């Protein structure tokens, strides 16, 4: 069985806020659900499936009750920032299997004005927690090793931020709308070697959501038709400390599965949403997905190759997590939303990819240098 062509993204909504001191987290989820339903032209009573992750207060039981939903299918898989890319795949499976017909997925939170939900720990806790692994230094370790093995440079990584900033200037909601240069990135303070402040994404309040449905329902609605044609997911960890390799992500497994199901190759992709918690995250995932060979990511991203209208692979045309939005430190949601905008032709005219009919939305979750998940979604305009 395949999900190819079975599930359509009928509604999307990105909360415009980046700072929400006067709202509750559950309230943000509800505003997002409402926004996604309005975008789709559906009502709350239509929803029969709901998906949320670790950011949802009280989990799926509390959220369904708070929102006043009545669902026959749900999933609260939490794989950090890529949870929503996993949910999109799982929602497509549920739609294909007839377990639900209109699924809602929401993400929201307010790390700038409240406490972050705690990161889950497992059997490793006594053997790792004392060493102060943060996103910055764990991704720093990946970048350090990548530079060591392949000669990747800080200048090359900086080009990823530069490209994101070129796109962010056209997004009125972007947290950092100013265009920056390679020199700006290199001159920003070192946070965790070799990552500078501008190699890091923003921290924002807010969130987003989307609605997945059947072909028949999608065709009865008014939005341009965007459907899932391939999905892959994978997990990676140190596995007993043998064969540790920080130069690749779980995307090496999720990517090929998604491309195979979709029956397309990286060369066919017109637009790429790539998780950008840090510049190194993008570079490694582009290699892992096959947009270039392993070790050649630095050369691939340099000289504006990711800038829409300039380079060969327009990426994160909303400004991404590096410049626009990274709600609750979970960037997978906005990756889906901008891919759908591109496929609908609703991206900002300055960054809209002409005749964009095939896009990828890909992300990792957890910590790239320790334990991680990856999910790859391939989407097409019908």
């Amino acid at each position, binding site marked *: 069985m395949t999900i190819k062509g079975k599930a359509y993204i009928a509604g999307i909504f990105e909360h415009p806020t980046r700072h929400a001191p006067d709202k509750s987290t559950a309230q943000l989820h509800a505003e997002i659900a409402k926004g996604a339903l309005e975008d789709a032209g559906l009502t709350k009573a239509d929803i029969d499936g709901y998906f949320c992750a670790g950011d949802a207060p009280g989990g799926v039981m509390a959220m369904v009750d708070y929102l006043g939903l009545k669902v026959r299918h749900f999933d609260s898989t939490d794989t950090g920032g890529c949870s929503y890319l996993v949910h999109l795949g799982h929602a497509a499976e549920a739609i294909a299997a007839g377990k639900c017909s209109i699924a809602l997925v929401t993400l929201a939170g307010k790390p700038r004005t409240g406490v972050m939900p705690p990161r889950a720990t497992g059997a490793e806790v*006594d053997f790792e927690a*004392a060493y102060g692994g943060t996103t910055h*230094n764990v991704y720093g*370790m990946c970048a350090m090793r990548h530079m060591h093995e392949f000669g990747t440079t800080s200048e090359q990584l900086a080009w990823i931020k530069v490209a994101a900033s070129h796109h962010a200037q056209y997004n009125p909601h972007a947290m950092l709308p100013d265009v920056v240069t390679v020199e700006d990135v290199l001159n920003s303070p*070192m*946070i965790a070697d070799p*990552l500078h402040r501008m190699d890091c994404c923003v921290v924002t309040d807010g969130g987003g959501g989307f609605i997945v449905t059947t072909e028949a329902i999608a065709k009865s609605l008014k939005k341009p038709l965007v459907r899932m044609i391939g999905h892959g997911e994978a997990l990676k960890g140190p596995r007993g400390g*043998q064969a540790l390799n920080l130069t690749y992500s779980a995307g090496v497994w999720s990517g090929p599965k998604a491309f195979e199901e979709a029956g397309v190759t990286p060369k066919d992709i017109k637009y790429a949403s790539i998780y950008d918690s840090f510049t190194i995250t993008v570079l490694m995932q582009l290699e892992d997905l096959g947009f270039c060979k392993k070790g050649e990511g630095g050369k691939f991203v340099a000289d504006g190759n990711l800038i829409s209208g300039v380079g060969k692979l327009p990426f994160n045309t909303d400004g991404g997590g590096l410049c626009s939005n990274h709600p609750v430190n979970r960037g997978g949601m906005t990756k889906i939303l901008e891919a759908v905008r591109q496929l609908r032709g609703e991206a900002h005219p300055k960054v809209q990819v002409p005749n964009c009919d095939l896009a990828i939305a890909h992300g990792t979750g957890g910590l790239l240098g320790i334990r991680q998940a990856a999910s790859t979604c391939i989407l097409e305009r019908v």
Partner: protein
Amino acid sequence: MADAKKYPTPITNPETAHFWEQTAKGKLMIKRCTACGEAHYFPRSICPFCFSDKTVWEESSGEGEIYTFSRMRKSASGPYAIGYVTLKEGPSLLTNFVDCDMEKLKIGTKVKVVFKATDGAPLPFFTAV
């Protein structure tokens, strides 16, 4: 270098208690599977490679080299260096580099285990040799 940093106390459990009893004696223990021969870290009772329950404790040399690292420039408890060490016996582990000049760390730097006190069992760290 005085190290006044307060480290969290390992919680320990029946599966890992022996590891922590040995750190109190200055020993770094790994697990080896007698069925497939592979060593692993952190310790499991069932081998994560072949799923045999024939795993035995083995004292590590405590020597290895840096696989990768990053210097955290600021934190509530000051700057620190985090990284992975690949032990001579094979497994790699996450750690901090202490009691040495973190500006001189490099991938490949030879390191050895040192232990730091907590309110319970001591924790393993590594220092440049």
